[in-house]
């Protein structure tokens, strides 16, 4: 590395041109970067539940529905005409597979001995038609309360959607189509609205967060260096890193979602610390009277090992996220690790190259000269040395308490929890929950002989018992359709007594109109059917227990008559995602800690040092989870990342170790080594922590609760790691690493 840096100092232009060229090539991928926050971006495609979801989508058209509520005077000729126009308009929107509303509902009933099968709404709706239509709808279990609210204030439009679409575009197109034809307020609930809103917020927040992070970093860098170039150089290196990693994402066809939208801030915050260390040293050497070229080389040599170790550790911690089964987290880990390594490369090559071209600054402040911060550090060292055993006992107690609290952490994957209370999709979802009894859907797939009246009866019983649960709004299936046909034919609700009867009534329904209307409920050969259970949008824990209750109910009622009963739908997928997040958490955490310990041990040539080096990180992670358990902060798709990212950003404590070992090697006694180490590296740790923590604070301005929480937790983590690195770490070094005879890795 050092020889490369030397080359960069001697021949700055080729290095700069190479960086420019690569930045242009990779950066041009930026235009290809797309956004996607569909449930699919969170669900691993090989998941069995996803395969069923996909199968259902292929067979029945859609496994997912979204409900729009239109507010206004539904029971009026104008209201119904507008509803019809709106229904027709949304049916034309790309990505809409099917639409159901009063406007395209069918009327099937006996009138004067004739079986009338026709559109519910006549071509021209006269005021005198309304009472009759309303009476029919009120008595129809498939329509009443499902397509219109009992008070007639809200009409529902049930949309079957292709969830692989660009949700933001779909959401806007739907809204546009509704608003063109419906004068009153329109509430769009469900996945497209939520995902669309998420994407809109990301795209709005992203530039703001990046600017803020850059401003905060700039301010902290200025406080540290008091010079323009001290601010601009680190920012230049992270800008390069950012362009490379986002561009690479574009070239690889990755899509940014809510989780991966924190990528820029992570790269900015973590990446800037590398150049900060190099520059710190450079100014120090200049101030000590060294020439420019020598100062650059010395800076790279002195900080190289620490920067390399922390870059590798950060890369490893982030890359460990690649072990996640959740696609969005996987890609995030990969790109963030890449970005961090690029930032490291830029710090060791681009920074020396640019520095060698710039004239020496007129004013030469030494950032490593004793100031208030370093004096405070100097006082800290003897305190820690005197109480090292007490410090370690306190740390052990802290670890135990936090681990205990961590057992109380809850998992939350409900999209709704992400939004502020007044966000339109949240308002819409809560309204649809209230007015129509549920905005979320659980899809039950029943396989078997669906012509068997006993199975139909069982499905109907399942639906009735399910609807009795307070969280369930409606449940409909082919059983309800057959009951309707049977009533129209015989005058009473019920099921035919034979398979033939069922087959013939199904045939009648097919003959009466659109055959597609039936394939939403049942396959053509009547071997599989769907039950759509509309449920309230619930927190993950409650949704899980509701799903389990319904599974139990299906097992009791339907299973004895069916070949198979399975549950699917976005909600079920999200529950699976929750399980994976929990599982991945342990894997990626363990992996990341082992990787960091491994790199530290390898580069510092001592297993014991490697083990001690992860102490601040281990304590911080325990602290994070303990804090989450204590404050009731749920583990969700965003907070699931904190441990891995904490590992990525937190390894700046390595600078303390490197300096401590250096001093031991130079013949200092452990106490003196600790003092020098804190005095020299403590200030850098302090400012690095400030820069990284400050960078993450930009995420406080995110439109999502989980990202804000993530930012706060990161603030805690960065502060905690710094604190542990300056107290527990030296204490541990003083107790366990009192000698360091081996050849220390010579500045890599």
């Amino acid at each position, binding site marked *: 590395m050092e020889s490369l840096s030397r080359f960069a100092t001697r021949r700055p232009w080729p290095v700069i041109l190479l960086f420019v060229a690569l930045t242009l090539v990779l950066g041009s991928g930026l235009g290809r970067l797309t956004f996607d926050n569909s449930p699919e971006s969170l669900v691993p495609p090989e998941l069995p539940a996803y395969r069923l979801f996909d199968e259902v989508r*292929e*067979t029945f058209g859609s496994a997912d529905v979204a409900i729009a509520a239109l507010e206004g005077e539904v029971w009026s000729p104008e209201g119904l005409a507008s509803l019809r126009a709106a229904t027709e308009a949304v049916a*034309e929107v790309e990505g809409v597979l099917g639409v159901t509303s009063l406007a395209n509902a069918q009327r099937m009933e006996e*009138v004067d*001995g*004739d*079986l*009338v*099968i*026709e*559109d519910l709404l006549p071509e021209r709706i006269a005021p005198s038609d309304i009472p009759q239509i309303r009476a029919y709808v009120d008595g129809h279990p498939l329509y009443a309360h499902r397509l219109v609210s009992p008070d007639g204030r809200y009409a529902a439009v049930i949309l079957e959607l292709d969830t692989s679409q660009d949700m933001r575009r779909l959401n806007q197109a739907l809204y546009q189509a509704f608003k063109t034809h419906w004068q009153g307020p329109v509430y769009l609930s469900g996945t497209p609205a939520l995902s669309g809103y998420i994407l809109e917020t990301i795209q709005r927040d992203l530039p703001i967060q990046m600017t803020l992070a850059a401003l905060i970093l700039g301010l902290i860098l200025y406080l540290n260096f008091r010079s323009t170039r001290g601010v601009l150089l680190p920012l230049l290196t992270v800008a390069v890193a950012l362009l490379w990693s986002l561009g690479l994402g574009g070239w690889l066809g990755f899509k940014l979602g809510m989780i991966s939208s924190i990528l820029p801030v992570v790269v900015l915050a973590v990446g800037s610390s590398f150049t900060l260390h190099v520059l710190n040293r450079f100014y120090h050497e200049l101030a000590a009277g060294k020439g420019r070229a020598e100062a650059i080389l010395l800076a790279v040599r002195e900080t190289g090992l620490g920067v390399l170790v922390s870059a590798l550790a950060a890369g490893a911690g982030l890359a460990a996220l690649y072990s996640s089964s959740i696609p969005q987290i996987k890609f995030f880990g990969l790109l963030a690790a890449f970005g961090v390594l690029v930032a490291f490369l830029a710090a060791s090559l681009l920074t020396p190259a640019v520095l060698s071209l710039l004239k020496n600054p007129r004013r030469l402040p030494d950032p490593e000269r004793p100031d208030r911060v370093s004096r405070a550090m100097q006082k800290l060292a003897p305190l820690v040395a005197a109480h090292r055993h007490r410090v370690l006992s306190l740390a052990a107690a802290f670890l135990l308490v936090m681990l205990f609290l961590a057992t109380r952490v809850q998992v939350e994957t409900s999209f709704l929890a992400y939004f502020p209370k007044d966000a339109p999709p949240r308002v819409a979802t809560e309204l649809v929950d209230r007015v129509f009894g549920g905005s979320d859907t659980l899809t039950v797939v029943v396989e078997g002989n669906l*012509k068997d009246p006993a199975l139909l009866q069982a499905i109907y019983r399942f639906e009735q018992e399910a609807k009795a649960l307070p969280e369930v709004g409606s449940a409909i299936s082919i059983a309800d359709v057959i009951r309707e046909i049977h009533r129209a*034919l*015989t005058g009473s609700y019920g099921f*035919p007594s*034979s*398979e*033939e*009867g*069922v*087959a*013939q*009534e199904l*045939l*009648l329904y*097919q*003959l*009466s*109109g*659109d*055959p*597609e209307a039936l*394939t939403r409920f049942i*396959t*053509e*050969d009547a071997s599989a059917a769907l039950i759509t259970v509309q449920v309230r949008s619930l927190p993950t824990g409650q949704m899980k227990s509701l799903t389990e209750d319904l599974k139990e109910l299906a097992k009791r009622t339907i299973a004895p008559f069916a070949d198979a009963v399975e549950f699917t739908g976005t909600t079920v997928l999200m529950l699976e995602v929750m399980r994976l997040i929990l599982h991945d958490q342990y894997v990626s955490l363990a992996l990341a800690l082992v990787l960091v310990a491994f790199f530290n041990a390898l580069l510092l040539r001592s297993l014991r040092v490697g083990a001690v080096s992860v102490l601040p990180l281990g304590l911080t992670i325990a602290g994070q989870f303990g804090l989450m358990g204590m404050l009731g902060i749920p583990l969700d798709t965003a907070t699931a990342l904190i441990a891995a990212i904490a590992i990525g950003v937190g390894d700046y404590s390595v600078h303390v170790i490197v300096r401590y070992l250096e001093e031991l090697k130079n013949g200092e006694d452990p106490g003196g080594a600790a003092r020098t180490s804190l005095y020299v590296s403590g200030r850098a740790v302090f400012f690095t922590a400030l820069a990284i923590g400050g960078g993450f604070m930009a995420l406080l301005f995110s439109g999502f609760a989980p990202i804000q929480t993530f930012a706060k937790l990161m603030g805690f983590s960065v502060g905690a790691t710094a604190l542990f690195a300056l107290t527990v770490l030296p204490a541990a070094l003083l107790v366990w690493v009192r000698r360091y005879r081996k050849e220390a890795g010579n500045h890599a």
Partner: protein
Amino acid sequence: MRRFWVWVLLLAAPALALSGEEVLKQVEARPRPKTFHGKLAMELINKQGKRLTRELEIWTKREGSVEKMLIKFLAPPDVRGTAFLAIRKGGREEMKLYLPALKKVRRIAGGQKKGSFMGSDFSYDDISKLGSLKSENYQSKLLREEGAFYVVEATPKPGVESAYERLVLWVEKPHFDVVKIEFYRKGALYKVMTLDEIQTYAGKYRIPTRLVMENKKTRHKTVLLQRELELDHPIPDSVFTERFMKR
């Protein structure tokens, strides 16, 4: 002089070619049988390629402005005996349905025209287009000639109720057989019908014996095979009655 004949030929050429309207008139001018009886195998193929077969027996009869049609399901066994009767007199249509499981004949009211023909991808309207397109309802235009085919575009005239906004027909030249129709809806190709086997009966009737309708939107397909056809054999009126439906 030679040049003069070239000019005559050039000027006369457009007059020799048929207009779209004339092509459709020729299609309609083909003789149609007074009665029709035969069996219909209907294969429903969904987008995953799953097949479901239904067999029907069909009787139709034309007498002046009265058209009668009876359809009985032969298979699958669970719908065997289900019968559908339609009698069109002038503009009015009466439809009846017999479900053997209920042992009752029910009159059906309501618009069936846009509906599916026996649960297939064909609509009643598509099926009736096979007999007569009613070219007076369409604005037609000869798009081009493709070898042995006229390609004609037919657009419903204003005020004519139609499920489609545009049809494109391929008409084979010697017999004026329609061999393919593309149905357009909302600017996009919606369904395609291909009549890939056409046979001559009684020396004059050109009857399609294999018809395929593919719905481009749902990727669902129906194959109709007509066999054991009897044309112009007398069919007694007693066939088109409730009693015969129940038999």
